[in-house]
């Protein structure tokens, strides 16, 4: 599907859609990324444009390396990732800062203050400072598109990679965007050998470091005069310095105040800050997470308030900003107390079968990043750790080495297909190499599920939807030196448990691949599946099925009178019911019922 291009069209786009549009308008030819909330939709939208190439890389490091290669080849290139993805990609990023670019090179970091879907809330503006790479920070979708275009121009003009930083409320908020005609770089593609620039031997890198420092000075001059860094004079009694999504919150909370809006988060101007400070009687810096702008302001010797008023944890909103600055508590109705509704594995999720079986083994489970991290929550409660992408395998190995013979057969690593390919392979190689005995469970649901179903090297399809060779997961594990690799159907919990018990006891590394498609995949949803029901007369209310934690299985509580009226014993406290709207027909619950009360529903 191609997105139509019309002149001067106004569209309502999310920040991510706007970045994709901006990249298309900037003539980007190659884009690579790894899915991660809140960045995923950038490439999913970009790939729909005519004449572009986009791909899912196995991880963010590879994505950045691909983008660097494309830039060397003389085309504009984009790499996208979530904030923690930049940690993975930091190695090539820091040296790309030295080499600079040929075609414009832009790296999107989508940060997640409030941890809506992340394991930490790191502030990636620090990366701009540390890697000496300029960073643009849009405040809404409109700027997201404009800044993306600008990022490519700056990249080529100053011979540097450029960061574009969003946060969840930029990436996933919609706003009006002005579409323009695409315009690429003013030179043709092609690689020109230039070892002094591209081969970072110490002797060359030393000289490039000098170039980097000069470049930062030039960019600081740009920061003084670019209108994306601007003063909006208002009431001079309050001056607010802000950037990113905090800017609209400030405009909403203090429409009269003077505002210094920063669009380039690094490098920061100096004269502009001084001009602003001279014009207002009180300065407050309003920014989410760390005191990045505030530290700079204070380094200049400008007295300002910041994190003593504005929270360092979580995201802001206009109310938080208003209360923090005025000190006035605005009374609103207290939230009502209702039962919590945390996210849960979907009905029909194959992971549920695995974790139900795994819980019975009473082993320590080192976990990883994916939907299956939700198995931590009750009633499954079958995960003990989750650090970062790929960590489960190294964690299990380390714990076994720590526990010695006492730990044998007591630790299991759990990791998804996409996460394994992202950064679990090296962990497994390490287990084999260093004479470990870990049991690794590879949850292969044939998709990168958590981020909304993206292809990966083991699914057999590219981001463009073309068929491709699949990474053969069992063959890969064997190639790493794992002799015991078994594939099970996790919906068959009895068989799964049997294999688990056998492999956990084995004093050698083994991999159990639980293979069943994600219940949300369209191919699965199109299949005709049975729907199960609880035969009320047979249900004794033993709750064996409830322990699955399936959203489709509902508990109907009884009073003693209701119980008797239903022909049950007075002490039966209720019965199970299966919602026909939610049941996916996975057949996990029927074998759990000793009373054969769960049967296929006759249509």
């Amino acid at each position, binding site marked *: 599907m191609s997105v139509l291009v019309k002149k001067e069209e106004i569209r309502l786009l999310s920040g991510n859609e706007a970045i994709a549009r901006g990249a298309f308008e900037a003539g980007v030819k190659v884009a690579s990324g790894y899915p991660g909330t809140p960045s995923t939709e950038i490439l999913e939208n970009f790939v729909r444009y005519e004449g572009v190439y986009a791909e899912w890389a196995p991880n963010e490091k590879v994505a950045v390396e691909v983008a660097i290669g494309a830039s060397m080849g003389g085309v504009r290139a984009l790499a996208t990732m979530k904030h923690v993805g930049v940690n993975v990609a930091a190695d090539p990023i820091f040296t790309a800062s030295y080499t600079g670019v040929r075609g414009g090179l832009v790296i999107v970091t989508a940060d997640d203050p409030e941890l809506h879907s992340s394991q930490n809330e790191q502030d990636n503006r620090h990366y701009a400072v540390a890697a000496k790479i300029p960073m643009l920070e849009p405040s809404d979708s409109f700027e997201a598109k404009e800044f993306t275009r600008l990022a490519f121009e700056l990249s080529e003009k100053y011979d540097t990679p450029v960061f574009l930083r969003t946060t969840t409320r930029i990436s*996933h908020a919609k706003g009006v965007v002005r579409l323009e005609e695409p315009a690429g770089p003013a030179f043709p593609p092609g690689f020109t050998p230039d070892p002094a620039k591209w081969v970072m031997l110490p002797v060359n890198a030393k000289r490039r470091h000098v170039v980097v420092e000069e470049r930062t000075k030039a960019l600081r001059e740009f920061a003084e005069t670019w209108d994306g860094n601007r003063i909006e004079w208002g009431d001079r009694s309050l001056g607010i310095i802000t950037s990113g999504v905090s800017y609209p919150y400030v405009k909403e909370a203090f429409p009269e105040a003077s505002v210094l809006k920063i669009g380039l988060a690094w490098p920061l101007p100096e004269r502009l800050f001084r001009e602003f400070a001279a014009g207002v009687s009180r300065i407050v810096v309003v920014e989410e997470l760390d005191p990045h702008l505030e530290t700079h302001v204070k380094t200049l010797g400008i007295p300002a308030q910041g994190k003593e008023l504005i929270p360092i944890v979580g995201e802001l909103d206009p109310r938080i900003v208003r209360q923090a600055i005025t000190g006035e508590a605005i009374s609103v109705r207290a*939230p009502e107390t*209702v039962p919590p509704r945390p*996210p849960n594995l979907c009905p029909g999720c194959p992971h549920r079968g695995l974790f139900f079986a795994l819980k019975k083994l009473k082993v320590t489970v080192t976990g990883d990043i994916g939907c299956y991290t*939700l198995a931590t929550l009750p009633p499954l409660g079958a995960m003990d750790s989750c650090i970062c992408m790929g960590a489960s395998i190294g964690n299990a190995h380390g714990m076994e080495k720590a526990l010695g013979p006492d730990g044998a057969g007591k630790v299991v690593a759990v990791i998804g297909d996409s996460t394994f390919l992202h950064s679990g392979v090296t962990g497994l190689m390490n287990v084999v190499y260093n004479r470990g005995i870990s049991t690794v469970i590879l949850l292969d649901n044939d998709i990168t599920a958590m981020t909304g179903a993206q292809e990966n090297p083991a699914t057999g399809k590219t981001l463009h939807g073309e068929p491709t060779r699949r990474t053969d997961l069992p063959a890969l594990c064997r190639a790493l030196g794992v002799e015991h690799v078994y594939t099970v159907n996790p919906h068959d919990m009895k068989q799964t448990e049997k294999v688990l018990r056998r492999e956990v006891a084995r004093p050698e590394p083994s991999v159990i691949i639980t293979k069943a498609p994600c219940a949300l995949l369209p191919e699965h949803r199109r299949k005709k599946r049975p729907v199960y029901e609880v035969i009320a007369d047979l249900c004794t209310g033993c709750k064996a099925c409830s322990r699955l*934690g399936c959203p489709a299985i509902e508990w109907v509580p009884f009073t003693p009178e209701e119980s008797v009226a239903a022909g049950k014993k007075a002490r039966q406290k209720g019965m199970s019911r299966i919602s026909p709207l939610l049941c996916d027909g996975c057949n996990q619950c029927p074998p759990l019922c000793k009373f054969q009360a769960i049967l296929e529903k006759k249509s």
Partner: protein
Amino acid sequence: MSVPRGDVFLAGVGGQGTLLASEVLCDALLLSGFDVKKSEVHGMAQRGGSVTTHLRFGPKVYSPLIEPGKADLLIAFEKMEALRFAHYLRPGGAMVVNAQEIFPPSVATGQERYPQDVAERLRAVTDRLHMVDALAAALSMREVRTVNIVLVGAASHFLPLPEAAYEEALKARLPEKFVAVNVQAFRAGRALLQPALLQ
């Protein structure tokens, strides 16, 4: 009712289609010449958890987030979710609530009961409470997935847009084969509330 600006808060359960509903509302508002901002969260929360959308329109909108106590309209796709986010409604704001109950894990596993007094507690928040059975309306069209658009239809009484704007938005947003049933769902939803009953 005609307002030059408004804050609409949508609350539901992951998988109920709140996203499509808010897209349709946004498109209809944009087509009618409003500035619009909308914010929601993707990713982990969508797996059966509470999901919310903040939708704001007016001549010029800055913040994509609605402050607690400021929403003019709360559209809840599930009864208990209305209660969870009732504090976002401004005094005198309106609520359109789907009477459907979806059990959260603690209720589904029998740890606690689904609150029995949701309607009364909602009425204590606002006397402009409109409870509708969007699920029944969707099932009567043999398309359970249209619950979201039925609710858009019911809520449309509280937004300053002509019916045509919604239908145009549905046509622009959906694949052709789903347009007819969704337009039907919108009309069915709109018919659930009689303008005469509305304050």
